[in-house]
């Protein structure tokens, strides 16, 4: 099938939001390097960070092949308002319970998205998503183990996980902010759309939450954290970018 200009525009929008989510959550995960509550978790978050940043690079490479700038330029020279990440991923790491719950909610969403996109008619994206799917398996496995163990641990661990869930769940809905391209991308069999992702996600994370003996949070305003996809971010993103690009900015032309 021939892609129209509108499809290409929609695809770029989709690729930017995916890659930006991955880069920013990857950076946040890396903030646990050397700081994890136990050594294994330090390594887990560091490894997941490396996977996410590798995956973001693969998607920035596809964008580059579609005529966008070099991955480094795209990653290191944009301001917050040009980023399309969701407001969930830019939140500070907080305490370990928040980071863990965010990782659980985020990785389920990505696993579903990658699974869907493995069947996309847009081959370059389908190929990398098939690859990411296998990698993600270990992320969701890790999340499942810890959510269950902490929910079944003691009163404090259970309360902490539930509180973190109450905070992160409404934010996670921002991952599925509808896009103006959803309908056309879906009709063209490029991407089945945010609404479909969200439906599957609610069912899958809901199962884990209930099996762990936790409660699914009630969300009064599902759109509270929308806006990230069009560059509207919280006050947390720009300081993250300043830190992430600090070395690059010293000499943007340096050869590494």
């Amino acid at each position, binding site marked *: 099938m021939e892609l129209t200009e509108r499809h290409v525009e929609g695809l770029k929008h989709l690729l930017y939001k995916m890659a930006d989510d991955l880069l920013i959550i990857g950076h946040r995960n890396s903030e646990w390097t050397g700081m994890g509550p136990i050594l294994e978790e330090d390594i887990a978050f560091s490894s997941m960070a490396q996977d*996410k940043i590798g995956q973001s690079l*693969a998607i920035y490479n596809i964008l580059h092949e579609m005529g966008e700038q070099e991955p480094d330029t795209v990653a290191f020279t944009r301001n917050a308002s040009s980023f399309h990440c969701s407001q969930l991923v830019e939140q500070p790491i907080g305490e370990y319970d928040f980071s863990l719950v965010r990782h659980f909610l985020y990785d389920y969403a990505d696993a579903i998205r990658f699974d869907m996109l493995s069947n996309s008619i847009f081959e370059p994206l389908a190929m990398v998503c098939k690859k990411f799917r296998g990698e993600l398996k270990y992320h969701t*496995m890790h999340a499942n183990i810890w959510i269950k163990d902490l929910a079944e641990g003691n009163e404090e661990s259970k309360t902490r996980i539930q509180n973190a869930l109450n905070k992160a769940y409404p934010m996670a809905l921002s991952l599925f902010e509808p896009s103006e391209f959803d309908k056309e991308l879906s009709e063209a069999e490029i991407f089945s759309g945010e609404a479909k992702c969200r439906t599957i996600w609610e069912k899958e994370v809901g199962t884990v939450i209930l099996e762990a003996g936790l409660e699914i949070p009630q969300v009064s305003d599902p759109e509270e954290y929308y806006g990230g996809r069009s560059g509207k971010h919280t006050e947390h993103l720009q300081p993250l970018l300043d830190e992430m690009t600090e070395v690059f900015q010293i000499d943007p032309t340096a050869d590494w």
Partner: protein
Amino acid sequence: MTLTESHITTLLEEVMDPEIPTISIVDLGIVTGIDIEHDAVKITLTPTFSGCPALKIMEEMVADKLNGENIKNEVITSFEKQWNTNMISEKGLEALKKHGLAPPPRHKGYIELDVLSDTPCPLCNSRNTTMQTPFGPTLCRSMHYCKNCLNGFEGFKPVS
């Protein structure tokens, strides 16, 4: 001299994984294309993990090897054929074990947690082991503990 695929393969069998020096990139299963045109060859590699930092190094190692033999070459990385651990050769599985890593079990396209929880210990072959974490010192490794010989060990984790 006319280039042949088997000659190139023999050369690439001498290019070892920079992080696991007992296994060649051929046995690791990441060489997905050897395309010969006249006196030049195009090598296609596929990443084990998208975030593997050894990827660029391996591209350079392949180019260095071929340059050393005065063979014109181009080395690219592509996701077109996605790597999974079933692509590691039998010889490769032995090579991993020689490096002290439990080789990944063959899988049928999906990985379940059970596969990881009774990984045979590479030191004493006991299956009385537990997985401590699916993450390790590199992206491709998990960490285990053997309840028989009481040693910690690393596994090369199965990827589908």
